[in-house]
């Protein structure tokens, strides 16, 4: 199946693209898609511990199983100022 991957902010800059489409296995989770992406763009690897994801414009856990045609967005940490 195919999913659309969208990247934002520094992730977008590191991968030098804001959107890509990839073929993934039928039981692929969000984490699987991220793993493949980080292998394709090693500069993204350091974000593995801090990245968030959204599927079809809703926040999603990394464990979510994807469906064909899903839109998966990867989000770097937000500014979240503490004061």
């Amino acid at each position, binding site marked *: 199946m195919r999913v659309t991957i969208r990247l934002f902010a520094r992730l977008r800059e590191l991968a030098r693209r804001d959107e890509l489409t990839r073929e993934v296995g039928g039981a692929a989770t969000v984490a699987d898609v991220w793993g493949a992406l980080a292998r394709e763009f090693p500069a993204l690897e350091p974000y593995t511990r801090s990245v968030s994801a959204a599927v079809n*414009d809703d926040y999603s856990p990394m464990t979510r199983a994807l469906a064909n045609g899903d839109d998966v967005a990867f989000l770097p940490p*937000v500014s979240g100022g503490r004061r």
Partner: protein
Amino acid sequence: MSSSRFAVTSDRLSLEPLIGLVSAPGDAAPGRPGAVATFLGLVRERNLGRRVLRLEYEAHERLAVRAFERIDAEVRARWPTVRLALHHRVGRLEIGEASVAIAAGSPHRAEAFAACRYTIERVKQIAPIWKHEYFEGGDVWIEGATADPDDEQARQEALGRSCA
């Protein structure tokens, strides 16, 4: 300027329409508010000792609007009389310009203040919006914590700061 209560926009922000949106009569909230608390976040010329030249904000816009609506639902669950409006700007911002504008209307002021403060804390925690700072000598993406709307500890922290 969007006429929605929750919006991401590249237009300059203004409080007046937000105040109108939370003090209009005849909507779901019980009557007109007696109190409106607002918040404006402005671009500062200094940050961490650096002289800032400008900022660029980038958002996952549809997800951001959903995050705002989620914050609104949290606010209504806690303060049922509060009516909220929240606009966030994206794109290039100069020093002194507003990046975020919030208005909270309520019959009484305690709830309006608490909801307004809670809202900005939650925006910082979970809105998918990133700040790219261009300063004298370089530029940097400002990254803090992982955005997780289900992080209950973060939510309690926001509640604590709202002095509820």
